[in-house]
């Protein structure tokens, strides 16, 4: 690279190509949306501009002879435990641009991952385990306010008026991802999968494209501080409404969709002009207290004739338990708590990596507080933020969650390799981009199948895990922290999670 700024010319990956195995098919050239690979006709060779590579592995997975390896740039700064590679590069970048560093996806810093410090109990001798292949196993989950007591008439019919519920075939939902941050094809994939699985997807704050209204029964429509795409029709189109107060990846700030991503369909759905930045205010300007939140909750209930549960989504922050208690008392039917490993389409890196708390401790704290106050039944609790597999989910439910939201994992099922370039709108896997050439990389027919496969696989694993605990219904695991033990945690951490040390 001749015309470059050497002060900023540090890059993370090198595209290694075994040229003896290269058949010049140019798959790597067309697939790289960052312009890192090109064909030189004069020499009949494929070259790479390593500094453009973001490590998304689109090219290496498509190469028909497997001759590409994406490797970490061996170019090394002197080892320094204080100044890590990313600290150094970020500093140079900012000295060059004077700007805030924006990134995508969730917090990638090595904070303690509490899922990895919890183990699950199993039956031995004194209590029998259950074989889910031979005996029925119930994963059906109801989200919404539950009554204090049930009254029945002589015939055994329930006479208590029940609050509206969301009925999930398995305790997993697709978390909020807005149309615009992800393209239409991804929205359709998630919607199709939800319908097939009997679960819910969440529109995020970008409104619901008209063509997806047919998936309304499996849709949670979001109402965020920017009110993008909110209309009476929209509010009534979904099965539930979620008020977005905060997001785990960037607590305290609003969503931001750069104008370049606001194309025709997005502009129509969001009800803003093409090309304008869609910047949600940091707070809802009509919510400065729990009382204000209550007004919005009831306004939305009125607007939907009290037929739909109202969820309130908050980022997991220090005081999450008290806030959740307020939200429950404000009349929410569901509280979604999004931990700091939750993903985003764009966030300042400083915020993504340093603000908020892990969902593990947040869920434990909220469940505990709501129980102490005797209002746990009044609200369902949904955990979000960084679920990687079925065992994370089992543990979240044992800690007190009713269900979980997944988004990063869902995008991974569709191809995402966590390259953290979502904010650039050039996603090589065709997910967080609205570019027509890139968007068609997600074929909803295929993507929906992969999402359904993932949720089926996880649901089967959850059944296996319930079975070995001798439990035949997910309902019986909720908040059953006695089935968890901590390994390698301090006493204070065990206390925060409300679990015992292994061996005790």
């Amino acid at each position: 690279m001749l015309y470059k700024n050497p002060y900023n010319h540090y890059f993370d990956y090198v595209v290694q190509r075994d040229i003896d195995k290269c058949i010049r098919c140019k798959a790597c050239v067309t697939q790289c949306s960052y312009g890192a690979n090109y064909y030189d006709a004069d020499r009949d060779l494929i070259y790479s501009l390593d500094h453009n590579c973001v490590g998304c592995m689109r090219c290496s997975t498509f190469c028909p002879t497997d001759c590409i390896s994406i490797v970490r740039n061996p170019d090394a700064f002197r080892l320094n435990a204080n100044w890590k590679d990313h600290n150094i590069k970020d500093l140079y970048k900012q000295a060059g641009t004077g700007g805030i560093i924006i990134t995508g996806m969730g917090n990638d810093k090595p904070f303690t991952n509490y899922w990895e410090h919890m183990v699950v109990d199993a039956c031995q001798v004194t209590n029998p385990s259950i074989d889910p292949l031979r005996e029925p196993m119930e994963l059906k989950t109801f989200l919404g306010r539950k009554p204090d007591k049930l009254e029945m008439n002589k015939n055994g019919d329930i006479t208590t008026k029940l609050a509206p519920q969301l009925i999930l075939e398995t305790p997993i939902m697709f978390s909020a991802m807005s149309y615009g941050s992800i393209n239409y094809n991804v929205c359709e994939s998630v919607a199709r999968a939800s319908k097939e699985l009997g679960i819910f997807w969440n529109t995020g704050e970008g409104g619901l494209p008209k063509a997806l209204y047919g998936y309304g029964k499996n849709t949670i429509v979001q109402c965020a501080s920017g009110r993008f795409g909110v209309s009476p029709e929209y509010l009534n189109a979904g099965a539930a409404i979620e008020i977005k107060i905060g997001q785990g990846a960037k607590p305290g700030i609003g969503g931001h969709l750069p104008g370049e991503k606001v194309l025709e369909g997005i502009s129509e759905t969001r009800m803003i002009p093409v090309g304008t930045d869609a910047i949600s205010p940091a707070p809802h300007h009509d919510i400065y207290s729990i009382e204000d939140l209550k007004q919005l909750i009831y306004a939305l209930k009125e607007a939907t004739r009290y037929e739909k549960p109202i969820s309130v989504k908050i980022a997991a922050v220090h005081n999450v338990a008290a806030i959740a208690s307020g939200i429950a008392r404000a009349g929410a039917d569901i509280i979604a708590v999004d931990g700091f490993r939750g993903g985003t389409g764009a966030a300042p890196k400083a915020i993504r990596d340093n603000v908020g708390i892990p969902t593990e401790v947040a869920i434990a704290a909220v469940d505990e507080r709501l129980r102490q106050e005797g209002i746990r039944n009044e609200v369902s609790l949904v955990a979000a933020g960084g679920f990687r597999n079925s065992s994370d989910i089992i543990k979240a439910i044992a800690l007190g969650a009713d269900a979980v939201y997944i988004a990063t994992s869902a995008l991974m099922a569709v191809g995402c390799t966590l390259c953290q370039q979502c904010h650039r709108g050039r996603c090589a896997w065709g997910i967080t981009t609205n570019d027509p050439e890139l968007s068609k990389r997600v074929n909803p027919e295929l993507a929906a199948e992969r999402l359904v496969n993932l949720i089926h696989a996880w649901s089967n694993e959850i059944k296996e895990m319930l079975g070995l605990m001798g439990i035949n219904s997910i309902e019986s695991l909720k908040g059953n922290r006695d089935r968890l033990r901590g390994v390698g945690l301090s006493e204070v951490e065990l206390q925060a999670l409300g679990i015992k040390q292994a061996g005790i």
Partner: protein
Amino acid sequence: MKVVYPREQWCVACNLCEVACMTEHSKTKDPLKMYLMERPRPIPRTRVEYRPPLSISTMCRHCEEAECVEACKNGTLTRNEKTGRIELDQDKCLGCWMCIMACPYGAISQFTKGIGTEERAVANKCDLCPDREVPACVTVCPNRALVFEDRG
């Protein structure tokens, strides 16, 4: 009869269909050896047209009323009455390119067959991979942009 249909809205221009087609019609059936060692090197019978943001892989439609068969004067191109497929017998082909002019889909290309004194140009087109149940291009396509269907 089943033929390959492109669904251009899902084509990602990866060219893997071309690679698979060449490999399937090679002696070694190995992409690397096909490319490095086989001479003449096979050419793809489907072509990926790439005009960003559009791309589409096109190959012979095995037309009901095949213009190429009409145009071919020496019986190189014929319909197999059993399978319905339009077959091309390269041993017969004289390289007059009437079929290329006649085909409304641009599905026929020129191929240099043999080497040295044996070298001669003949027509080349999709044969729907007679040795395979599902054609190579359909199997390889990572985004279901090619389907093997009977659309009547």
